């Protein structure tokens, strides 16, 4: 049944077979794209025609590799910038929110907290269209009433950042709160009794304690932004992020360069996952 109890062979091996099948199911798509990124053919799939690095480096009219495909590199660059801005904003506001909800009581706190965690259960498409409608409304209002025409209210880089930040801050808040709950409030009280102001004690005592969680929140929100499609698609302007670019290529013009990008992403994420696992072990 469990580690400490004797198990019948049927239970033991039956379970093992199921778990193996599950992990094959889980990893099969990732292995397939990774291997086929090196396939010497213009089809995205089998048959295997031999090994090549063309889909990374080639720069011909028939074969445009990842590092020669300027549109693709551009969308990757936009995604990285978006993710950096979104993660920075989300981590700052998420940390502030977790400090607010954990250490203060105030009127309408429960209602405010309800809105803060609502993005967990609001589908991303709804956030996307509401923010699009909201910003268009504000932009139009400013234009007609005050004669100010601000580009920031139209689809584009900053609207994508804000749209993703609307839910990113929620996740950052929850990750930081999980660590803040383990914080010993006496440390802060000691600082306060030594004449530190509330903000000083938060800055010098609480924030350093939260550092691993803040870093974790940054990484998590960065990756969330980098992979986001559902919210982004409504807010994106003429410069697509990587997932938006991938989507239109999968729909309309698949070449193995998609496998090459996918392979790079699989590789990056695997490295990040390994590093974060080791960091967690070290922190324990």
């Amino acid at each position, binding site marked *: *049944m*469990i*580690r400490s*109890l004797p198990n019948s062979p049927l239970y033991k091996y039956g*379970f093992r077979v199921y*778990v193996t099948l*599950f992990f094959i199911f*889980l990893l099969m*798509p*990732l292995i*397939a*794209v990774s291997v086929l990124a090196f396939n010497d053919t213009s*089809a995205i*799939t*089998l048959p295997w025609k031999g090994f090549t690095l063309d889909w990374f480096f080639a720069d011909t009219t028939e074969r445009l590799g990842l590092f020669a495909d300027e549109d693709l590199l551009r969308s990757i660059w936009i995604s990285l910038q978006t993710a950096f801005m979104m993660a920075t904003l989300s981590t700052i506001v998420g940390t502030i*929110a977790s*400090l*607010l909800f954990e250490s*203060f009581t*105030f009127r309408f706190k429960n209602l*405010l907290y*309800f*809105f*803060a*965690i*609502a*993005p*967990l*259960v609001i589908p991303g*498409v*709804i956030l996307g*269209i*509401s*923010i*699009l*409608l*909201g*910003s268009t*409304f504000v932009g139009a209002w400013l234009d007609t009433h005050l004669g100010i025409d601000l580009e920031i209210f139209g689809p584009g880089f900053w609207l994508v950042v804000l749209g993703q*930040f609307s839910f990113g*801050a*929620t996740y950052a808040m929850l990750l930081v709160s999980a660590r803040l709950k383990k914080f010993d409030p006496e440390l802060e009280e000691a600082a306060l009794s030594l004449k530190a102001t*509330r*903000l000083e004690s938060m800055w010098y005592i609480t924030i350093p304690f939260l550092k691993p969680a803040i870093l974790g929140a940054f990484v998590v929100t960065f*990756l969330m932004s980098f*992979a986001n*499609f*559902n919210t982004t*698609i*409504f807010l994106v302007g003429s410069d697509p992020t990587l*997932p938006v670019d*991938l*989507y239109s290529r*999968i*729909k309309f013009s698949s070449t193995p360069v998609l496998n090459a990008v996918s392979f790079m*992403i*699989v590789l990056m*994420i695997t490295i*990040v996952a390994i590093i974060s*696992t080791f960091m967690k072990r070290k922190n324990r």
Partner: protein
Amino acid sequence: MDGNKKAFYFLFIPVALWLFILIILPHIDLFLSSFKPNSGEDVYTLENYSAFFADPIYWRTFINTASYAIGVTLLAFVVSFPIAFYLVKVISPKVSGFLMLLLLIPLWIGELVTIYGWVILLGEQGVINESLKFLGLIDHSLPLIYNNLSMTIGLLYMSMLFMIIPIMTTMESLDDAMIEAASDLGASKWTVFRRIVIPHAMPGIINGSIIVFMLVIGDYVAPNILGGKSSLWFTEQIYNQFLSTFNWNQGAAFGFLLLIISSATIWMALRLSGQKLDKVGD
């Protein structure tokens, strides 16, 4: 102003701005827009909602999507529960740590890449079809892609990890001694699962179900890329209104209906299980 108050406002203002500008205001606007005609006239009307009920394609798609989302949630539970139990209770923590790492990788890689992976696997000349042909098991490609089966695989794949992780979290707090005691007293495995493990993991199951349901009902990529022409998905209607026909007000009404159904289902799940929304994120 004393230091305490200053600190409070220093923290309160950014949070209030975030929630007011990016959560509350846009949803009010969504609600109001759904009652405006697309002509731009400044009047309120029910025409966007009556269009939904008048055209069977809309409400059928809506019902189809909601029932599919419930089905995929149940499927995700059935597939995930044994995995969560195995990782927490059966194998050694060391192996379990490694398998956890494998679980998290597809989660962070993101939906576009993993769904694309399934296109490569399931396609007419995909890895699975070509391998079966190579082995001589089939002569002609099986119709594996662009149907409800491939769509279900995609939806399950992108959502099941959100079921496994909360169940694992609750399972970790289950004392092995409980299972040992029940087993010593002659309880069968089935009884142990039914009477001890599942009730203990219930909060995790509910959390996981809520997240999976929300992700599936709001998903666009898996139904759009892997689904067939007959796989009707409600988010596709929303996308069409916003990005093809540019009838934003109609799209707002659809969006609002989607928000209602997903909130109502989540509220019901919380109500039936006696849980609070605060706990969903834990």
